[in-house]
């Protein structure tokens, strides 16, 4: 056995899982090879130290804290279970409603395929309303001129002169009042 093979099988050697012949070969190699013997001793000593580390114990409040957390978890689970149950009920109700709706729609579609009487809106005769358009007059002068038999243009000209005439009449009134 060479050192490489010894190193490869050292894990099983330390764990004591080697077959009888292999075990003897390993032990013989240790007796012959000082380097491998030192390495073997170093590993075994280190493992012994680690395996003998004092175990730590849970602190005083550990159990109380665990109990509180378990209770909390228990309540959460109960709440979740209730919510899930309610949701399931809601889902069932929604499913039933959906099925009913689909059934109704389906039956409606089925019925439209059947020939049936046409229902027309009743015919009602209506008279058209007369169109009363209001007469829009731009100035009172034009309105007044029509029954008086006056032609349009003189009236229009007269209308243009209205401000002047009004001014003049005011002027005369002022003179009279002095």
């Amino acid at each position: 056995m060479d050192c490489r093979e010894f190193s490869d099988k050292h894990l099983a050697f330390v764990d004591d899982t080697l077959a009888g012949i292999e075990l003897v070969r390993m032990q013989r190699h240790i007796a012959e090879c000082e380097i491998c013997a030192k390495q073997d001793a170093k590993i075994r000593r280190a493992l012994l130290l680690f395996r003998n580390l004092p175990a730590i114990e849970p602190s005083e409040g550990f159990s109380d804290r665990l109990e509180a957390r378990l209770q909390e978890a228990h309540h959460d689970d109960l709440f979740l279970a209730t919510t899930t149950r309610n949701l399931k009920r809601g889902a069932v109700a929604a499913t039933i409603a959906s099925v009913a709706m689909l059934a109704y729609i389906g039956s409606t579609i089925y019925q439209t395929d059947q020939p049936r009487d046409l229902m027309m809106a009743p015919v009602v005769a209506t008279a058209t309303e007369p169109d009363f358009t209001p007469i829009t007059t731009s100035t009172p002068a034009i309105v007044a001129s029509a029954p008086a038999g006056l032609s349009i243009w003189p009236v229009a000209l007269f209308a243009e002169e209205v401000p002047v005439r009004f001014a003049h009449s005011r002027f005369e009134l002022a003179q009279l009042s002095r």
Partner: protein
Amino acid sequence: MANIVRKQAVPAVGPSVRERLQAMDDSAVVTAFLGGEERAFSELVTRYQTRLLNFVYRTIGDREKAEDLVQEVFIRVYRHLHRFDRSKKFSTWVYTIASNLAKNELRNRSRNPLVLFQTVQKNFQDEERPLQFEDPTSRPDDMYRKRHLREIVEESVAKLPEHHRHVFVLRELEGKSYEEIAEITECNLGTVKSRLNRARNSFAEIIAPYVD
């Protein structure tokens, strides 16, 4: 469920039930719990709390956080026990949960420098606390020597790469078989053996200067 943990210390628990639970193997205790025997859960807690605490503590190196994680393990066990495949070993399942939580914790720490700093600071403050694990009846110089040695061993383990340390602790501290370790760490058998061999060699090299 209310007094699952407390019941283990309360004398109201019928001794016959407790004794019967204590005599059962894990699988039978699990079956009892699933069958409605609430006290079976406290039996599982009693069996595994110290073992899991040591495993998680040796893996992450923070005692307080280790306790939190072990509690989380039990909560997950409580919630998901009905999904547990009873054809497999309960202990492997529990250790798988603990292992995954420890791995997540280490991953979170590496991502969050603040958490890493707080852990280092807490460990530093722990140095100021009185001696805890040694036998108080020992001579003071002996206690100091033992404590010093313990610290050296713990520091040496902490220096191992995470994936090596994980396998190393499961094998050397918990005595798990290669197959169980492969299942817990979700690695193949060859990887487990390779990592364990390297971890042993590295650990021996790291600690050698202190013990020679």
